[in-house]
């Protein structure tokens, strides 16, 4: 038996992205869930599972119970999933499996955080004893992988620039996007490095905000008369070693396994994919995911992404709402929302004739990975 297409995303909802001074992450979750339930036209009392990606900057015990209590609901299933930025996509797949196992009918997956106006210290923490060498922070781990990719495959800066430009120039047309000034290659190349080789426009935004989705079986969606249910066709996962230094192969990750599993479940090959929403916390992460998913060969992304291939009218439209680089730094839920809008035909950068979309979520320093494939 395959679960491909048996469940749907029935509703999506989000807060505004940017700054929410004084708002708790629980409150931002409630606002996003209220919007998602309204979109699906489902009453909160029908929700019997609540799965939450814990707020990165404010990790708490029993966090999902706190959100459920603020929603005034006592669901059957609930829990937070510690998988960094891969968690939202994974939780959606877990909801599908629980629905098909007959444990629940309607699930909500939600995420909210306020690192911008709250506490962003988590992103600059020392990396154990290696702080003696000056090794601090999350961003430099990505820079380390990027330098290896540059050295191993002679990947030019323009390859990373093409990814930053595609995300930004899609974000320009998204009124909800946090950064909307256009980016050209000269601007990209001229920016000073933060931690070389990472330049300013290679790096995620830091944002407050929340997003949620409502999941149910396709059958239930038909029964409830849901307007625009989006079938979930496939999913997959992969987990890579913790320490960047100790990965024997620094330039590929278990994203390969995650993507291959999800595409196989959906009955697709990379050539069949109409559009992608790829986790772009740093341009190197997106570039390696494109390679690991098989859209091009390992080390060949520079050739693949050039000449506007990732733009709305290009060969593989990418991050059509702006991604983490332009829309919001939220870890992954915005990519799922944009995938849903592409399948509904309501994106601000709608891809003509798009019948499927591949979404990647990933976390830490590329340690965790999760893939979703949506269809129509």
């Amino acid at each position: 038996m395959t679960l491909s297409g048996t469940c749907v995303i029935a509703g999506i909802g989000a807060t505004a992205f940017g700054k929410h001074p004084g708002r708790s992450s629980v409150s931002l979750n409630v606002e996003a869930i209220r919007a998602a339930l309204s979109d699906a036209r489902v009453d909160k009392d029908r929700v019997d599972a609540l799965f939450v990606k814990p707020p990165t900057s404010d990790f708490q015990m029993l966090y999902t119970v706190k959100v459920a209590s603020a929603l005034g609901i006592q669901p059957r299933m609930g829990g937070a999933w510690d998988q960094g930025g891969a968690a939202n996509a994974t939780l959606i797949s877990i909801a599908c499996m629980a629905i098909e196992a007959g444990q629940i009918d309607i699930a909500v997956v939600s995420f909210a955080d306020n690192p911008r106006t709250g506490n962003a210290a988590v992103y600059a923490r020392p990396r154990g004893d290696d702080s003696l060498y000056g090794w601090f922070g999350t961003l430099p781990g990505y820079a380390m992988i990027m330098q290896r990719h540059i050295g191993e495959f002679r990947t030019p800066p323009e390859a990373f620039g093409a990814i930053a430009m595609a995300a930004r120039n899609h974000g320009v047309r998204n009124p909800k996007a946090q950064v909307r000034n256009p980016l050209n290659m000269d601007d990209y190349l001229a920016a000073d490095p933060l931690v070389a080789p990472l330049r300013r426009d290679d790096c995620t935004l830091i944002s407050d905000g929340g997003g949620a989705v409502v999941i149910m079986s396709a059958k239930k969606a038909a029964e409830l008369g849901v307007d625009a249910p989006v079938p979930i066709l496939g999913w997959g996962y992969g987990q890579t070693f913790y320490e960047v230094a100790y990965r024997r192969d620094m330039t590929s990750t278990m994203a390969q396994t995650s993507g291959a599993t999800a595409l196989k479940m959906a009955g697709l090959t990379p050539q069949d994919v109409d559009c992608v929403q790829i986790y772009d916390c740093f341009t190197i992460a997106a570039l390696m995911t494109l390679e690991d998913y098989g859209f091009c060969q390992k080390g060949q992304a520079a050739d693949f992404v050039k000449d506007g291939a990732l733009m709305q009218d290009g060969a593989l439209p990418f991050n059509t709402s702006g991604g983490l680089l332009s829309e919001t730094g939220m870890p992954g839920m915005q990519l799922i929302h944009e995938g849903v809008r592409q399948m509904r035909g309501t994106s601000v950068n709608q891809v003509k004739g798009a019948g499927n979309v591949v979404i990647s979520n990933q976390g830490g320093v590329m340690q965790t990975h999760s893939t979703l494939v949506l269809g129509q």
Partner: protein
Amino acid sequence: MSAEVKPDRTGPAGAFWSALDGGRLEFQRCRACGAAQLPAREECTACLSPDLAWEAAQGGATLISWVVYHRPYHEAFKDRIPYNVAVVELDEGPRLISNILAPNDSLRIDMPLRLELGESFGQTIPQFRPRVPTG
């Protein structure tokens, strides 16, 4: 964040830092399967045996990758900007985070290195220098 930077000697890495106090870079060698590893752990990641011995590194290594900090993440390092942090692979196999004692713009992927002990906040640390002198 505290301005003090020092290693945690309570776990299995205690012996790693003690060896450096004595002027030696050591890694773990599994007595059961022969695998070499860093960072120090309680078990071998290859065969899960807890029977691990310490072995001195000969000092040869290769540069796997590096970054250059142009912004300080910690006030204790703000006077060192721009400084490099690298991933180095010892000839015996294990990899570690370190610094390369050479101009940042002379660094190249896979360049051969040799060990040179240095000091950071009073702790002896393993650093590396290119085997062939560069500009």
